[in-house]
């Protein structure tokens, strides 16, 4: 049986391209999403725009807590969704904090989610390479599963930097 070289070449190319196609399908199916993605995935908030995530340690320094209060109020009317992750381990502490907080809006709606979970707080901070007990603010893009900006609240000098990153498209 004579094997036409052209046929052989075409078959090889077909096999090659099929292989690439199958490989890319498998790769996209098994793409590993970040921990933050797995959290945001479960929340019923608008994910079409960049999301502002605050990880808050209630025992952080006064300046850091005041920084969080200032930012959360200043960005409360932003069209971007926000997520608050509060480092609280026990239900009794959550109740105590809710009872005593009077100048931060923790209402959950389609543009805000509040998670009272110390483990989540630690995991997010750890995944971002920051020291665990610090309160952070991050700008996160759900579609690209990418953290655009992240800094401890104590190190934020200008709110404009946050606004610029909040509007960034990837």
């Amino acid at each position, binding site marked *: 049986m004579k094997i036409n070289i052209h046929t052989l070449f075409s078959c090889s190319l077909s096999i090659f391209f099929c292989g690439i196609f199958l490989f890319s399908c498998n790769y996209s199916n098994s793409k590993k999403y970040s921990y933050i993605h797995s959290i945001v995935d479960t929340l019923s908030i608008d994910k079409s725009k960049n999301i502002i995530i605050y990880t808050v340690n209630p025992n952080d320094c*006064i300046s850091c807590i005041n920084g969080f209060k200032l930012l959360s109020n200043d960005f409360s009317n932003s069209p971007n969704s926000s997520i608050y992750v509060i480092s609280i381990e026990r239900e009794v502490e959550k109740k*105590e904090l809710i009872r005593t907080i009077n100048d931060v809006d923790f209402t959950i709606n389609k543009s805000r989610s509040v998670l009272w979970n110390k483990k989540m707080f630690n995991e997010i901070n750890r995944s971002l390479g920051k020291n665990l007990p610090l309160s952070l603010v991050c700008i996160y893009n759900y579609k690209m599963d990418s953290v655009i900006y992240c800094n401890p609240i104590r190190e934020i000098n200008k709110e404009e930097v946050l606004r610029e990153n909040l509007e960034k498209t990837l």
Partner: protein
Amino acid sequence: MMKKYSYLLIIAGLMCACTHQTSDYNFDNTHSIKIDESKVVLTRFPSVLKDVNDSIIAVINSAQKLSLYNINSGINISNFSTEKINFDSLIKETFQKKFEGKREYIYDTSTAGGLSDANCQVLSFDYSNNAFYIYLNTLVQVNYINDSVELLKYSQNEKVKQLKKENGQDINLQIMQYLEFIVVVDEKMNLKEIIPLYEKPELKQEKYSSFYQKGFAINGNKIYVPIQKDNQSFEKITSKLKWDSNFYTLAQFNVKGKSKTDYKLSFTEIDFRDFSLHDYFSSFFVYQRNSNELIFSNGKEICEIESGEKLFSKNQLKTNEWVQNFFFNSNKNIVMVTYTLDKKANPTEFEINYGVDSLSRITIKIFDLKNMNWGTKKQLPITSNLAFLVTKNKIVYFDKDKEHYYLKYILYNEN
């Protein structure tokens, strides 16, 4: 022959008499008592533990309250809270009056107390003269309306200059400052007195700043407070402290009223040579009363404050080992809790910049002062809480699980 044998026996006897045995201590099992949270919900481990008597300890809770607990039952006996103090009025009567016409103090409850409804930060205390002397501070906005000297400090600040340059015009500075007070409370937690802590002219002249939050001690009508030179400016928090034989550790003056300031424990008497700025703020400054003497530890060495005599040298510790708390046992031995910090194997950039190390060991150790060596040791399980209290017969600390906080104590005695 018998004579020679007798001489040998006498010499052997004398040698036994001269050889001092290192003290041998016995540590009991750890007692664990659930903390009563019916009055105060704990949101973090209590800090600054001090014993009021053999069964009662005083602690600071969440930088908001001074709380008394019964060690044996865990019952929260009483609490002192600042919620009844009207800081707006207090500031008007004290700092505002003092600086009337020169400065304007603006107190806002939303910035003063953090996330909850607190109105200040309760950071350290001492128990003396059957009263609690509690240090607290509250954040206020200050307008230097006619205080050009103070305003100059800010306008000459490098970061402010840079901001002005970037903006190309004058900037609006909102200056926030901590105003400091000592609140005196009796054993029933009744408020007796509030002492405003104005800047002391002598300290200012010597270019020292005080750090009450590191811990202070009251002895009679005198107060001993940590001080640091203003020219300890740093590139980063891990930079070494500037050292000079003329630098002092503590200032001593009358708690109330004007008095001369004395300086105690020079840097030649107590060693700060290996301290970074991070070490200075993270180490534990501990005071203990021994008969009529006041004794102080900077986390590495222990000295008598008045005489400057060194009782314990850092050479007895490993390089990365620190003293958390101690009990000085009448010139016999020192019972201490030490902890070891190791460099992280793969520190993040943040951990490098902030000098964050790993806590690797917490140990109760007995140091024999006669033999100048270590005796019994007992390693404790690592916790995330580094607040211990060593008394004449027990080690006290707090621990927690997912649902509760616990008061734990270990009794000890000499064999």
